[in-house]
Each structure stands twice: as structure tokens, then as C-alpha cells.
């Protein structure tokens, strides 16, 4: 039985930029940049879905919209059955965002203090939070380091703390934006292993935005390839690529798209 946890219809994000003082004659003139254009997407419960595309393809913008950090300009989306635009609080209680942005923690506080703060923001009662923090620290193997200040952690440890924070409220969907950026091969391998063997097996849905094709090939059940804001292809990796590799398929798709757009 399939169980859809995420679906988008014609999801679009346009950024309007006023020219301002860069165009003194017409400071109120606007330019519209479409970062995400008419995305149709369906993700099933327990799937690991890869959002692929080069830099500027719209992966992060789409991820931010689905995490309620950005308001869509058009279209609609449902996350765990909740309307993205009208039920943001409910949506947020079902998701976690894990990015490679290590500055999203308080560096002067230790790991445990950071988690305690974010557990409170998730509305987890103090007693339960205390227990839950120890559980997630153990899962990411950070129990011993949790009393050290965040600023003393290595990149890999910071990333594991990001994962621990994501696990706190036991969300249904994990959004990961370039989660292995800056990690060494061993830490990357451990991270992939965690996604496949801990999250996916526990029935969690993972949406990974990445431009590492090998990473996507390794961990994703299905991928969606974005280019210039549009979802150009999506499906199971094997179905999309056939006998070729994801890398070849991706290159062909990008070239084909460029020809379509430029006409040569």
C-alpha cells in the first residue's frame, strides 16, 4: 500500500527584485526571477528521494518552501496531509531540516545545551526532552562529546549534531540540504549508512538535495532532476538511467535542456 507524505502541484517561487538605485532613472522597475517553476512532485512514506541539479537549479528554494521558510508564489503542496500555506505549524511538527550549515547552532553552548534549547522549541516537555536528548546523542555517537562546546567540534561532529537535532522530535520527513558537504569519505559513508539503515528502515521519508550524483545513486530510491527551476525528470534511478550511469543521464539531460532553451 502506498502512502503519500508529500505532494506538490504546480509549485512555483518567483523572486521580485526592484532595481532601486542601480537604475536611478527607473528605481521602481522590477525584474522577476523564477527560482522554482511548476514543480509536480509526489513522495511516498519511507522513500529516500534525491533532489538533484547543478548549483542554482532551485533545489534549496524548493526545500525551503517545503519547510515553510519561503512562501510559494503559486501552486500548492501538502506535507503529511497538511496544507503548506495554511497549516504551517502542523507541517513544522512533522518535518526536520538538516543542512550543512554548521552556523545554525550556538557555538558558545555545549552540544547538550543546544539540543535542550531546540527540544523546547519543538514543544517537547522538559522531562521527556532530557531522555530524548540522551537517546539521540547515543544514536549519533555524540554522548561523550555532548558536554563540550559546539565550537570545539570537528565538521563531522557538527554534522552529527545537526542530525541529532533533526531526530529530536521524531519527525516523519527529513529534508537534507547538501548534508555531506565538507565531510570526509568515512563520515560521508557513515551518514549514508545512517540514512539507509536507520531512517529509511524506520519508515522515515528522506528528501536529500544534492549535486553529488554518486551520493544520490547510492542512497536514493527515486530522484528528481532539476534544472533552471524546473523538474526535468523524476523516477527510480534505474528506470531513468537504463544501462547508462546517473552521471551520463544527468549530463545528457542538462545538454538537452540547454539546447531547448537556447535553440542551438
Amino acid at each position, binding site marked *: 500500500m502506498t502512502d503519500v507524505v508529500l505532494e506538490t502541484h504546480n509549485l512555483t*517561487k518567483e*523572486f*521580485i527584485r526592484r532595481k532601486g538605485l542601480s537604475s536611478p532613472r527607473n528605481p521602481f522597475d522590477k525584474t522577476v526571477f523564477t527560482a522554482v517553476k511548476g514543480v509536480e512532485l509526489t513522495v511516498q512514506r519511507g522513500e529516500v528521494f534525491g533532489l538533484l541539479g547543478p548549483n542554482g537549479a532551485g533545489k534549496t*528554494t524548493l526545500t*525551503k518552501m517545503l*519547510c*515553510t*521558510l*519561503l*512562501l510559494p*508564489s503559486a501552486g500548492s503542496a501538502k506535507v503529511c496531509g497538511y496544507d503548506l500555506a495554511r497549516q504551517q*505549524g502542523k507541517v*513544522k*511538527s512533522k*518535518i*526536520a*531540516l538538516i543542512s550543512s*550549515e554548521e*552556523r*545554525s*547552532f*550556538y*557555538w*558558545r*553552548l555545549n552540544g547538550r*545545551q543546544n539540543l*535542550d*534549547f*531546540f527540544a*523546547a*522549541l*519543538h*514543544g517537547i*516537555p*522538559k522531562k521527556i526532552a532530557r531522555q530524548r536528548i540522551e537517546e539521540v546523542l547515543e544514536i549519533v555517537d555524540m554522548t561523550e562529546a555532548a558536554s563540550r562546546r559546539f565550537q570545539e567540534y570537528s565538521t563531522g561532529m557538527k554534522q552529527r549534531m545537526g542530525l541529532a*537535532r533533526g531526530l529530536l*522530535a521524531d519527525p516523519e520527513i527529513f529534508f537534507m540540504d547538501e548534508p555531506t558537504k565538507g565531510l570526509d569519505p568515512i563520515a560521508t559513508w557513515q551518514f549514508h549508512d545512517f540514512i539507509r539503515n536507520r531512517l529509511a528502515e524506520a519508515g522515515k521519508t528522506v528528501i536529500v538535495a544534492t549535486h553529488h550524483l554518486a551520493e544520490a545513486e547510492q542512497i536514493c530510491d527515486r530522484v528528481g532532476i532539476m534544472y533552471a527551476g524546473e523538474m526535468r525528470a523524476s523516477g527510480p534511478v534505474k528506470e531513468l538511467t537504463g544501462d547508462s550511469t546517473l552521471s551520463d543521464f544527468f549530463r545528457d539531460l542538462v545538454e538537452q535542456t540547454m539546447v531547448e532553451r537556447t535553440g542551438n
Partner: protein
Amino acid sequence: MLTLRKPMAFLKKDFLMEVSYRFSFVLQFASIFFSVVMFYFVAKLLGEAPSVQKSLSEYGGNYFSFVLIGIAFSNFLSVGLGSFSTNIRSEQMIGTLEAMLVTPTTLSNIVLSSSQWSFAFTSLRVGIYLLIGGLFFGVSFTGAAVLPALLALVLTVVAFSSLGIISASFIMIFKRGDPIAFAITTSSTLLGGVYYPISILPGWLQSLSYLFPITYSLRAIRLSLLQGAGFGEVGGDLLALVLFSCITLPISLVCFRFAVARAKRDGSLAHY
């Protein structure tokens, strides 16, 4: 209890962050002492001059007591006006705002809760100002009417915070160069009677001073703490603060809602 969990978590986090910079933490208290000493000598210089006595007769005639309350409680002006925008900007700059916004906590809750520490710390600072003045420099609060002073303080915080939320809305859209806080802080310090009574200002400036809540706040607090004035005597000032809050609070909430919607639309919520 769960409703207090989030505000308490902000308070704890901000306290831990503050004390993690130990030297700066201690230095802030030392600066209070030096500031009080400085004004003690200024007061000594002005001494018992008849013109000073006459201008301050309403408050008991002692310049040091007058200015001590002015500098202590004007801290609430700075924190009310600045803390919301400063804290939101600080979270934007260190990169934690987005991580907070992905949790089921509203932005208004984040903004209000993240300012609690500033208000708590300012209350502590004000207490220390009054304590130093009372213990070491002979300021007497024996006949003080505490309840009217406390009510005036609460209304002062609400009035200043409304302006502060408007200022935070501005910061959310334009990121820097907030003219609201600058204009109100400068005008309030100049016209609100922080360092001198407004009675020494020219008539037209005195009229202007009644546009700023600090004028009413300081008068009510001074009269209550130094002259033991009750609710009846400071009722006019309290009413002015209530009216001021009734006008500015809804405006500030509308501004804030507009700013958040605009920032979410523009994608600039976490920009700085």
C-alpha cells in the same frame, strides 16, 4: 507549564551565552558603578544652586536622585526599542534563525522570547543602579510608593516595546539603518527628561516632549520613588502611557505581520 517551556528555554540559553563571556559580563556591572560615580560628582558640582533646587522642586530638589532614576530607567527605553531588532538581527547573523523557524514556534514567539533576557538583565541593572545610589550615595527611597512605580514600569515596557516591534519590522525588511530607533532614542534622551527636567526646555520643546512616552514614565517613576506619590498623583501619566500603548501596540503588531509576510515572500527572512 508547557506554555512557559519555550520562553524559559530562551531565557536559559541567553543567560548561558551571556555568562560564557565572563569578562564582558562583569564589566557591564563595573560600568554601572563608574556611571553612578560620575553623576554623583556632576550633582556635587551643581550642588545646592537655587536654580537647580527650583527646577527640581517637584522631585525633592536633589539632582543626584533625579538623574539616578533618569539614567537607570532610560535603560528600559534602549532595551525596549532595540532588543527586538537587535536580537532578530543577531540570530540572522549567527545563522540560527532558520533552524528556529523550522520548529513549531512562531516568529512572534521567537522575537518576544529572545528579548526576555535583555529585559531581565536590564531590570537587574536598574536594581543595581538604585542599590548603589541608596547604599553608597545617600539616595533615600524610604517613602517610595512601590506599586505605582511598578505599574509605571510595566506600562513603560509595553509602550517602549511597541515601538521596538515597529523597529524590528523595519530591520526584518531593510536589515540595517533603522531610523525609528535612532529618531526615538535621540529625541527621548533630548526631550524626555533623562538628565534634566523638561521644565528647563523652551515652551515649544516642552510641548514636543509630551509626544514621547519616556516623559510620562520618568515623571511617574520619579514622583513615586522619590516623593511617595500614589496612584492619584501619577494617574495622568499612567493614563498617558496606557493610551500610548493602545495606539502603538496594534500598529506594531500589524507592521510586524506585514514585515514577516514580506520577508517570507522575498526569501530574505534569514538575510542580514
